[in-house]
C-alpha cells in the first residue's frame, strides 16, 4: 500500500495527538455497557413505561394536532419493527434490500386474505378461524409465511453481489405489489381487502368491539388510564411489546455465533468464508429473520387499519424504511428505532407547523437563513480547522440549525396556500432525500453509529475493564 502507513510515527509521539473526543453518546454508551443486567432492566423498565404513557399525556411540543397522537405512535411502533428487521439485513449482514416493503406486504396480505370478507380464502366466515381470535391466530401464520417467502427469494438471489442484490430485491418488492394489484380474484385488485380482522379484547358496554377497534376513541378526561387510551394507543402498546420481544431476540442473536458471522460477512465476505463462516447460510438466515419481522409488522398494520390495498405497498415505502435505518445508524438497534421515529413522526408533526404568515416574509426569512448558512459553510471551509472547543460546537449547531430552517422555510414557501396553511408533511420525500445525501457525505454511519464491541461475554469484559479504570472510556486507559 502507500508508504505513509509503513513509516513508524516516530516524529509525533502518540501523546501529542489530540485524543478523539468522547462525546455524550459515548459516555452514555460506556455507562450503559458497564451496568449489570438487573441494573439495565431497572433503568430500562421505567423508561419503557414512560414511553408507553406518552400518548396518554402528550406534551404540547410533541403532540400532533392534525392526527391522533396514539395512532402516530402506533405507526412509529410498526416502523420501529420494520427498522429492526431491515437493520438485521442491511445493518448487521450488510445486504442492501430495496424490496423490504414486499415482505411487509406479504405479512399484511396473509392476514387480509385469511380474514377479509372480500377474499375467496376468508376463513372467518364459517372456516377454521373464529372472528374473535382470528387476528391473533394469523399473526404467527403471517410471520411464518413471510419467513418462507424470504427463504424463497433469498436462496437464488443471495449469491449475487451487493448492488445487484439491491436491484433484484427492488424488482421483487415491485412484483409483490403488482401481483396484489393484478390477481383480482384473490386480492380484489386495487380496491383492496376491507374488514380485516383485529383483536377483540376488552369488549364492554361502551366499547362493543373491544379496545383495539377504531370505535374506541378514548376519553381524554378520564382518570382511568385504560379508559383514557384510544385504540391507537392500544395498538402502540401492542407494537411496543412486540418491539421489546423482537429486540430481545435480535439482541441475543447479535451476541451469538450468528451475529458474529453476520458482522464478519458484512466486513469482508471472502475473508469470512476463508475463516470457515458459511456465508451463504448466514446471509439466508439474516434475510429470513428480517423478512419474518417485516411480516409481523405488516400483520399489525393490516389489523390496525383493517383495510389493505396495493398502493399502501409502493416501492417508495421501501426507500422510506431504508431512510429510517440509514438515518438512525446502520447496525445500531436503538439508533434505527430513533430513525423509525423520525420517519413516522416528523411528516405528521410537520403538517401542523406554520412557520410564516405570508409568502413575502417567507422569502425574506428564507434569504436570511440561506445567507447565514452559506456564510457559516464558507467559514467552516476556510477556518474550520482553527475553531476549537465551544466555538466549534457553536458553529456546527448554528450550521445545522440554519440548514434545517432553510429547508423548512423553503418548504413553507413552496407549499404556501391562501390563509397561511403550509402542509410541510407533503414534502417528506424531499426532506428525506436531502437527509440521505447529506448524511452519506458528512456522516455515512448515521446519527447514532454502531460501535465495534465485544459480542460474546461482552458484558463481563466491559465490567472487568471498567472496574480497573473507573471514569475512563473503554479503550483509553491501557
Amino acid at each position, binding site marked *: 500500500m502507500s508508504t505513509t502507513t509503513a513509516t513508524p510515527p516516530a516524529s509525533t509521539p502518540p501523546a501529542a495527538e489530540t485524543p478523539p473526543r468522547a462525546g455524550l453518546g459515548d459516555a452514555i454508551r460506556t455507562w450503559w455497557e458497564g451496568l449489570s443486567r438487573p441494573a439495565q432492566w431497572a433503568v430500562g423498565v421505567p423508561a419503557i413505561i414512560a414511553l408507553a404513557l406518552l400518548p396518554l399525556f402528550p406534551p404540547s411540543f410533541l403532540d400532533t394536532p392534525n392526527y391522533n397522537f396514539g395512532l402516530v405512535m402506533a405507526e412509529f411502533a410498526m416502523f420501529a419493527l420494520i427498522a429492526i428487521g431491515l437493520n438485521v439485513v442491511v445493518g448487521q449482514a*450488510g445486504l*442492501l434490500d*430495496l424490496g423490504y416493503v414486499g415482505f411487509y406486504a406479504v405479512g399484511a396480505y396473509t392476514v387480509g386474505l385469511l380474514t377479509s370478507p372480500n377474499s*375467496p*380464502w*376468508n*376463513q372467518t366466515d*364459517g*372456516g377454521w378461524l373464529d372472528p374473535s381470535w382470528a387476528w391473533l391466530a394469523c399473526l404467527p401464520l403471517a410471520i411464518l409465511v413471510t419467513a418462507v417467502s424470504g427463504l424463497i427469494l433469498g436462496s*437464488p*438471489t443471495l449469491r*449475487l*453481489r*451487493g*448492488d*445487484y442484490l*439491491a*436491484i*433484484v430485491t*427492488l*424488482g*421483487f418488492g*415491485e*412484483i409483490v405489489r*403488482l*401481483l396484489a*394489484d*393484478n*390477481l*383480482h*380474484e*384473490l386480492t380484489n385488485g386495487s380496491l383492496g381487502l376491507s374488514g380485516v380482522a383485529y383483536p377483540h379484547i376488552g369488549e364492554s358496554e361502551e366499547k362493543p368491539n373491544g379496545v383495539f377497534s377504531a370505535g374506541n376513541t378514548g376519553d381524554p378526561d378520564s382518570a382511568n388510564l385504560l379508559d383514557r387510551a384510544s385504540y391507537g394507543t392500544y395498538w402502540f402498546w401492542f407494537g411496543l411489546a412486540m418491539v421489546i420481544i423482537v429486540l430481545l431476540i435480535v439482541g441475543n442473536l447479535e451476541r451469538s455465533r450468528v451475529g458474529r458471522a453476520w458482522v464478519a460477512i458484512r466486513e469482508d465476505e471472502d475473508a469470512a468464508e476463508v475463516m470457515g463462516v458459511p456465508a451463504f447460510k448466514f446471509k439466508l438466515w439474516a434475510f429470513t429473520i428480517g423478512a419474518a419481522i417485516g411480516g409481523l409488522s405488516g400483520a399489525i398494520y393490516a389489523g390496525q387499519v383493517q383495510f389493505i390495498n396495493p398502493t399502501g405497498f409502493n*416501492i417508495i415505502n421501501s*426507500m422510506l424504511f*431504508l431512510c429510517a435505518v*440509514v438515518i438512525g445508524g446502520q447496525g445500531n438497534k436503538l439508533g434505527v428505532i430513533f430513525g423509525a421515529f423520525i420517519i413516522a413522526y416528523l411528516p405528521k408533526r410537520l403538517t401542523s407547523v406554520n412557520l410564516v404568515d405570508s409568502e413575502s416574509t417567507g422569502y425574506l426569512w428564507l434569504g436570511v437563513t440561506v445567507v447565514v448558512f452559506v456564510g457559516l459553510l464558507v467559514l467552516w471551509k476556510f477556518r474550520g480547522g482553527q475553531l476549537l472547543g465551544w466555538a466549534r460546537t457553536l458553529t456546527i449547531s448554528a450550521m445545522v440549525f440554519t440548514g434545517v430552517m432553510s429547508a423548512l422555510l423553503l418548504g413553507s*414557501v*413552496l*407549499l404556501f396556500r391562501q390563509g397561511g396553511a403550509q402542509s410541510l408533511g*407533503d*414534502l417528506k*420525500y*424531499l426532506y*428525506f*432525500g*436531502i*437527509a*440521505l*445525501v447529506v*448524511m*452519506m*457525505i458528512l456522516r*455515512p454511519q448515521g446519527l447514532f453509529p454502531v460501535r465495534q464491541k465485544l459480542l460474546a461475554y461482552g458484558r463481563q469484559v466491559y465490567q472487568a475493564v471498567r472496574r480497573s479504570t473507573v471514569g475512563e472510556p473503554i479503550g483509553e486507559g491501557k
Partner: protein
Amino acid sequence: MTTTVSAGALLAAGSIGFDYQAVIDQFWRLTVDGITYGSIYALVAVGYTLVYGVLRLINFAHSEIFMLGMFGQLIGLMIFGFTAGPDAYNQGVVLTVVYLGLAMVVGMLVSGSAAVGLERVAYRPLRRRGAKPLAFLITAIGMSFVLQEFVHFLLPKIDPDLGGANAQQPIQLVTPSVQFSFAGADVTNVAILIVVAAVVLALLTEILINRTKFGRGIRAVAQDPDTATLMGVSRERVIMLTFLIGGVLAGAAAMLYAVKIPPGIIYSGGFILGIKAFAAAVLGGIGNLRGALLGGLLLGVVEQYGQILLGIEWRDVVAFVVLVAVLMFRPTGILGESLGKARV
C-alpha cells in the same frame, strides 16, 4: 368451501392469461412495437452501462435524469411557441423533424447538465472520501427523491404550467399515422422517427467510445483506473464525460418517449422506465456498450410478447422477471460485462 380452490386453478381461471395464439397472430406487429420501445430502453441503458463500466456504480438516479429530459424537451417546445393541447400540429415532415430535433437538443442539454451536476454534487464528495459502494447507492436514492420532488413542488413555482402532481398536458407535433405495412404490421411515422433517431445516436455513441480519443480514455479508465491515470488520462474528466454522454442520451430518449407516449410526462414517470433500462443493461451485460443496445431491443420485444401472452397488466412484471432470471442464470449478461475489452 373456498379452501379447496387452489392458487394454481385460480390463477389459470382468470388473472393470468396464456394466449400464445395471439402472439403468433400479431408477431410482426408486436416486434415492431417492441423495437420502438426497445430503442428507447437502449438509449437509457447506455447511461447505466457507461457509468457502471467506469465507476462500478449503479447510478440509481439515472431514471430521474431521464425524467428531467422529458420536462426539458417540453420546455424546448414551449420556447419555440408550441402550446399544450389535445390536437397535434402536423406541420409537414421537414418542419416537424427540425422542431423535434431542436426540442431533443434542449432535452439533451437539461439531462446532460443534470447528470454532470448530479455527479458533482452527490458522487464526487463520496469518491473523495472513499465511501463504500452502498453509500453511493443510498445517495443515488436520495438524489432521486430530491429530483422528483423538485419537479413535483419547485417547478410549478417557477412556471405554473410545468411540474406538479399531475401528468403534463402534452404538446403533440405529429399524429401517429401508418406509413407502410410490413408482413401485416403497420409501421407508423412515430415508430420510424424513434428507431431512426435511436440508431443514429447509437452509432454516434459507438464511434465516440470506440474511435475517438475521448472514448479511448473512457475505455482505459474502465479497464484499469490506476494505469490509465499513469498514462495521462484524467480520471475526473473521464467520469464527467461518462455522466455527460449518459445524460445526453437519456435526454434524447426522453424526447422520443414523449413522442411515443405523450401523457407520460410526470414527475414520477422515470422510475419504472429506469428500472427497465437497467434490466436491459444487465440483460446485455452491464458495462458493455453494445450489450446495452442489444439488451434494450431484446427487452422491448420480450416485453411486448409477454404482455400479449399474459395480459397487459403483467407488462411490468415481465421486465422484472427477465431481470431476476438474467441475474440468476447469467449475471454477466448476454455479451459479458466489459467496457474496457469491448474493442481495443
